[in-house]
């Protein structure tokens, strides 16, 4: 399995083939409201299904048959972990948004991101992470009349 996963093209082909099949099943359940000899709402999704399945199958077969290219190593280096951690930080921020509001979520998020970027001066972190999200919140609320999420309170 690891050798298969290491062939990225094979992974792309397999995943997209599966997506194509699921998409085809969903397309089959679309209502048919077309007039005779005219394409209905499912026509274009059927085309997409066909092209998606054919292209992903070609990619998968080519990747599996391609003996010239040895499978690349799947490397989980420190950069990959950093990427995953930072993406996780963004996910936590967005998950917190509806509950604690834009300001409540953005200030700690901003401070965390500054730490990730190597900033160590606490005063700079505290000041910047309060001023920039705060300014954005008030500029959008009072300047542009766009109410950013204010949380559950």
């Amino acid at each position, binding site marked *: 399995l690891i050798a298969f996963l290491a062939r990225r093209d094979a992974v792309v082909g397999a995943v997209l083939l599966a997506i194509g099949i699921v998409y085809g099943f969903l397309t089959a359940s679309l209502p048919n409201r077309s007039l005779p000899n005219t394409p209905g709402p499912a026509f274009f999704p059927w085309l997409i299904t066909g*092209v998606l399945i054919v292209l992903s199958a070609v990619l998968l077969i080519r990747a599996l048959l391609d003996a010239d290219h040895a499978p690349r190593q799947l490397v989980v280096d420190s950069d990959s972990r950093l990427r995953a951690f*930072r993406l996780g930080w963004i996910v936590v921020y967005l998950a917190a948004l509806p509950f604690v509001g834009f300001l409540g979520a953005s200030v700690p998020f901003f401070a965390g991101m500054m730490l990730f970027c190597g900033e160590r001066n606490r005063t700079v972190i505290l000041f910047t992470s309060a001023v920039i999200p705060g300014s954005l919140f008030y500029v959008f609320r009072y300047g542009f009349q*766009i109410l950013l999420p204010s949380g559950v309170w």
Partner: protein
Amino acid sequence: MSGDVLQGFMQAIQPSSLLATALGSILGITVGMIPGMTISTGIILVLPLTFVLDPGMSIALLLGLYVGGMMGGSFSAILLGIPGTPSAAATALDGHPLVARGEAGRALGIAIIASFIGGLFSFFCLFFIAPNLADLALGFRAPDLFSLVFLGLTIICSFASKSLIKGLLSAVIGLAIVSIGQDPVMGTARFTFGDANLLSGIHFLSALIGLFAIPQLIENLVVNDSGKVPTTLGVRVAGILPKLSDIRRIRIPIGIGSVIGTFLGILPGAGGPIAAFISYDYAQKASRKPEEFGKGAVEGIAAPEAANNAVTGGALVPMMTLGIPGDPVTAILIGALLVHGLAPGPLLFIERADFAYGIIFSFFFANICNIVIAFAGLRILVKLISMPRAILMPTIAVLCVVGSYALRNSLFDVYVMLSFGVLGLGMKWLDMPVVPLLLALVLGRQLEEHLRIALTASQGDVSVFFTSPFSALFLGLAAISIVWSIVNARRSRSAGTLNSKFSE
């Protein structure tokens, strides 16, 4: 028509529009200069602002940013040897050696002049070509429009990808995403799973913010950890105004770059990097001293710089007249116009000709603002290259959230943005190009709509796509573009095999 031209000029010359252009230009130069930041990211930063400004000001701001970004990319290419944007990669070849010889000001001055002339040349082409092309496009019927959009997609896929199959697959994923929501002809709900948010489909701009900004943000944070923060300390910028002898030397390279850049800009997908390298190559061939290229030849700065700025005007031609974006930036411009209820395409020159000319003149003023700001503020602007990323990166992240939320005042769009960010990261990891997906998101609905209208009118007869001369021409060109990219892929593959054998 002359009335519309005059109204367009008056719209572009309004103080508010000029101010927006100048602001966009400053932001563009700044964003372009910072390695790792792209013009697309810069546009995403100001996107929330464009929702609240009037359309004229919005487009002036975005065009200033587009043109400024192209020029800004060359500053870091010259000063640091690191291109700020991919389009400035060719400029670094001769720009940085000049800095090493202590002639930073001379290199920057030539880049500014060449960029300005390239941009100006493409403005004139835009001014004269766009209205005529729009007139021609007005005669297109549904089969022609379908084939045209299909051609746009295939050209982009073949240019944007190392692997044609992956490029096409990326576009097909985009088309599948576009099929979510009400269908464009009958309004039937598709793949909505009963969720009201999905009825109006996935908003193109929130998808775009996620696809471009999130992966770039994550990558920039990683790069920053490795301590690769560039600095311009120690570089002295003096003698910016080019000497007459230099002007004489760069006349022909600028001409070469301007023509190639504008022409390639009109072709969807070709873009700035290709135009810059082709122009560099032709300028070297046309030079009396080709051996100086790569060692600090001023011609080697002028040709690619004229080319990458000429691309901007060229890319606006298909965007404005056919509604087909030439690159991610023009795709965002289409999105920004759509937010204001203005659909780029041939009808723009009929229904809102004054606004169409306003865009063209805003592009002209963007070039003027650019040269003025670049010459007047160069010494201050180059200091921004070492702007602290600890402030920049979190600000971009927060603005991504604000930008996607402000689209419809909905957190749903914020989560769509995040989902597309994860998709973008996944595609990057799997070596899948993102640009075809993005363009499928822009063009997908048009593709389906024209296809279905054409087939409905012909009672399901597909020969309608081959009997119409324009449609047959576009389909023929699409076939050529696909065959061309297959041949190219095979060539580069065999060259790679040969190289690896030699290296063994």
